[in-house]
């Protein structure tokens, strides 16, 4: 039997206002195992903790119950207190008599009664607690960043800066991500390439960073500190270490009519190509689907022109396995498909474009060399209509768009409108919006400049229909402020498409056993207090894979994720959660049911020899829990018919004792 001390906290009047704390400590005195019971104003204060420490020493306590605020608040505090007094931290249980009692019940009598019952349940549980020791596991001092956009780049640079090796896995032939496609950035209007490309070069030159471009993660095993990751390096048919990036091949390749992804299909590239001039790694890549040599063995021009001899038509996909201590997801976003938005005639007219396409049209490295020309006829557009919230903030049409706000559209549209008016003052610019959201440093000033200085027509209202008519686009819209219907004859319509997580995020989340929300954004461990960590230990979140963000926010989160990774990698050993599953092999049937429900693959089986009571031996298959992998959800304990599987810290006996105490 335990020797239990009970400590009831007043929490000022937070608890004592609705709960008779003295009555609670008195009532719990007679519970089995309780040898000491007291109450104090603030148990979490230094003086309160001293009361606990002294009582542990004085009364030889083997377990303590603190009746106080939520364990989510101070369980860790009191565990440390106990440990400081030489008591195992897991001999502490908290009865939540604040959040779940005094704050939700008004009446002193019921509040006190309930507090006593909650205290009894905690005492009943502690009576069955056993000291637990966290297991230790080593940490592989290398991080993996999945995604090579600005988020991944920043995270990798920061981690490498702290001296830890980092690998970046990027599916595209180059890192850079969406930011590399942008022209200017709001609200400062500095050139995206000018601020991004130096960072890309830093990455390339950093000897702590390896870039696996044109690659993807195909398998993740293991757990925090000890991930085993398989990376598929797609064959690019160009030897990365030999190619000088001179570009001769990309000029000679006879396959010229391949839509250029980097320019969103608005111009063409060759079958062998370098996405853009500042690509990192600056290495050519052969597009398997369009290369004549690879498809039917007839061509070989690139190999002939390559002075370095970098072309290798026989290259194969390679799989490499690497160990990591931490993984950062930085998979980024994409604009949503416009297929479902027929009312805007996106598929009918080349002159209806998305904002990202607009970005390329205005970019000096873009298909038009930075001149704003209509895709259909190459003419200067005289009237441009920007449509905001295309697919964002859709509540009724959830299956069509997204419920959330994509966050960045207001600002980049203001940027587009402003830049258009700046370069082409003869152009009329209309922006249709639901709300203009500009919370951010210098954001609202920026927007107002667009309206006030640059004369952009901001109209509150939605565009109902865009119809191509005789080379023009008829825009039907409503003006909600003037309460009238508008018809605008536009030359170019730009849709601010909602952004959504990259499609690679979902399968990746499954591999990482990291959770996602319904929109496929990664879930953070805590929305406020742990925004850059996934609930899965050792997995961190950087950039828009966690939710819509602009560049400064992305960079800030990337740095935050990096610091979390650094904090993890700086440790030599990790203390595990000792509340893990444990199988009693004497009762185990070896039936694999627990293995089937374990989300972490923490259960394996072994054939074990047992001595029978009649002195014969039998070999039986029994389950074994890898305590470093187990996260302690307890799913296996219910799946196990024989009851061999139990969860330390939340044993069947303990929960039943709590039930009994509550129902007594």
């Amino acid at each position, binding site marked *: 039997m335990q020797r239990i001390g009970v400590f009831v906290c007043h929490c000022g009047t937070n608890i004592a206002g609705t709960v008779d704390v003295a009555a609670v400590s008195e009532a719990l005195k007679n519970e089995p195992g309780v040898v000491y019971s007291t109450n104090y104003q603030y148990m979490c204060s230094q003086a309160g903790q001293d009361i606990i420490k002294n009582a542990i020493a004085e009364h030889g306590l083997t377990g303590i119950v603190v009746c106080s605020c939520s364990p989510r608040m101070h369980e860790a505090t009191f565990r440390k207190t106990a440990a400081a007094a030489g008591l195992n931290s897991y001999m502490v249980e908290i009865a939540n008599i604040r959040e779940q009692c005094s704050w939700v019940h008004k009446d002193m009598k019921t509040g006190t009664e309930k507090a006593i019952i909650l205290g009894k349940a905690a005492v009943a549980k502690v009576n069955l607690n056993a000291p637990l020791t966290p297991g230790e596991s080593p940490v592989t001092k290398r991080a993996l960043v999945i995604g090579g956009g600005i988020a991944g780049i920043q995270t990798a640079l920061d981690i490498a800066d702290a001296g830890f090796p980092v690998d970046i896995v990027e599916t595209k032939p180059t890192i850079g991500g969406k930011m590399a496609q942008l022209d200017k950035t709001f609200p400062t209007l500095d050139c995206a390439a000018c601020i991004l490309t130096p960072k890309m070069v830093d990455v390339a030159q950093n000897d702590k960073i390896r870039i696996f471009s044109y690659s993807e993660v195909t398998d993740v095993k293991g757990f925090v500190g000890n991930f085993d990751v398989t990376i598929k390096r797609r064959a690019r048919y160009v030897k990365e270490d030999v190619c000088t990036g001179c570009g001769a091949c990309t000029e000679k390749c006879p396959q010229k009519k391949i839509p250029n992804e980097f320019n969103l299909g608005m111009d063409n590239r060759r079958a062998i190509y370098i996405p853009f001039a500042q690509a990192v790694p600056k290495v050519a890549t052969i597009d398997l689907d369009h290369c004549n040599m690879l498809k039917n063995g007839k061509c070989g021009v690139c190999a002939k022109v390559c002075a370095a001899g970098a072309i290798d038509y026989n290259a194969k996909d390679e799989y490499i396995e690497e160990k990591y201590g931490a993984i950062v997801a930085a998979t980024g976003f994409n604009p949503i498909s416009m297929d479902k938005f027929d009312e805007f005639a996106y598929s009918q007219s080349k002159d209806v474009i998305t904002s990202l396409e607009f970005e390329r049209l205005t970019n000096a490295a873009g298909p038009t060399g930075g001149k704003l020309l209509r895709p259909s006829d190459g003419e200067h557009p005289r009237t441009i209509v920007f449509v905001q919230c295309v697919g964002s903030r859709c509540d009724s049409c959830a299956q069509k768009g997204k419920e959330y706000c994509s966050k960045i559209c207001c600002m980049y549209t203001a940027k587009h409108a402003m830049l258009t008016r700046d370069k082409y003052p003869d152009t009329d610019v209309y922006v249709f919006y639901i709300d203009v959201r500009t919370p951010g440093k210098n954001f609202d000033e920026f927007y107002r400049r667009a309206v006030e200085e640059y004369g952009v027509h901001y109209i509150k209202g939605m565009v109902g229909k865009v119809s191509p008519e005789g080379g023009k686009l008829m825009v039907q819209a409503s003006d909600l402020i003037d309460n009238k219907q508008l018809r605008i004859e536009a030359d170019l319509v730009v849709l601010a498409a909602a952004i959504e997580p990259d499609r690679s995020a979902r399968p990746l989340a499954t591999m990482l056993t990291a959770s996602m929300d319904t929109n496929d954004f990664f879930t953070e461990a805590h929305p406020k207090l742990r925004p850059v960590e996934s609930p899965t230990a050792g997995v961190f979140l950087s950039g828009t894979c966690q939710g819509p963000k602009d560049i400064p926010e992305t960079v800030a989160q990337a740095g935050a994720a990096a610091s979390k990774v650094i904090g993890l990698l700086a440790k030599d050993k990790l203390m595990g959660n000792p509340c893990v599953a444990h199988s009693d092999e*004497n*009762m*185990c*049937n*070896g*039936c*694999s*049911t627990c293995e*089937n*429900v374990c989300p972490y693959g923490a259960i394996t*089986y072994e054939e074990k020899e047992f001595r029978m009571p009649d002195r014969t031996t*039998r*070999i*039986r*298959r029994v389950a074994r829990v890898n305590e470093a992998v187990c996260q302690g959800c307890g799913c296996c304990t219910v*799946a196990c*018919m*024989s*009851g*061999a599987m139990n969860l330390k810290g939340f044993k*069947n*006996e303990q929960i*039943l004792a709590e039930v009994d105490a509550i129902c007594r």
Partner: protein
Amino acid sequence: MQEITRDTLISRAKELLASGEVDRVYGWKRGEFCYDVTPALFTDAESLEKDFEWGDFCGANLSKYLVEETRKSEGKILVFMKPCDTYSFNQLLTEHRFDREKVYVIGTPCAGMLDPKRIRDHAESFTSVVSDENGVTVSTLFDGDVKLDRSEVMPDRCLNCKSKKHVAYDELFGEDGGTIASGRFDEVEKIEKMTPDERFEFWRGELSRCIRCNACRDVCPACTCEKCVFDNPNSGVENKAAENSFEEQMFHIIRAFHVAGRCTDCGECSRVCPQQIPLHLLNRKFIKDIDGFYGEYQAGAEVGSRAPLVDYTTEDIEPSDAVKGGDENA
């Protein structure tokens, strides 16, 4: 087609023993009366000749014995199995309860077993039963012969046979059948259609007869736990003799839950219940719900299949919707 008789089985068993392919045979042994055959292990030709029995009363499902028996020695065991037994056999293999290599299965045809309890309803103190295609003739001690339809004296599980197909065997005697769209859920539906009060009364009446002899558990091929929770003082549900209605319910709910998704509906529980509680109606309720909620699933149909309770889809029915079915009848 060759007719399969007791002799067919014996001679094949003797061959397999003689060749050393197997070193023991699990079958049935005849007893005092025509109906009291006992599952038994045979190791030699002589005892097979003398005692081996195969007929209308060899209903016991032998698959469960293999768990212990295969552990006893390295040799291979010949076992005879009716179609329904093979489902249990596969389920046990799925759960790694024994080594397939240690068993030689001969599938035997089955026309449905006879139930001594049902025979007694028609013929007290009976001493012999002869069955043929025309029906069943029962001889009694004091009332002469009674002629009955086979369907009158078949147990429920055979009347509602779900399959005449052997899903596992090394050798098959007779021709294999197929699965049968039986009315096995009719009784369940009948209960579902009752009002909650009627359902409660019905089950109270049935379960209150339980004497906690554990026969249902001990015969159940899905209940092969090394240590049953009901025997384990630490499990929180241990109870030796049901003191009251709660414990009766507790035992049967938990037991049914533990075999949910694993129960092959072999019907042994109801066969052996000394109090004739229709225990299979609990298991069938789970089977029916599983089929309805998660798609049809037959435990034991395939080795290695994933049982419904160790599986999920993101679109599964909510618990609140799962029990709405009874609303209209309430």
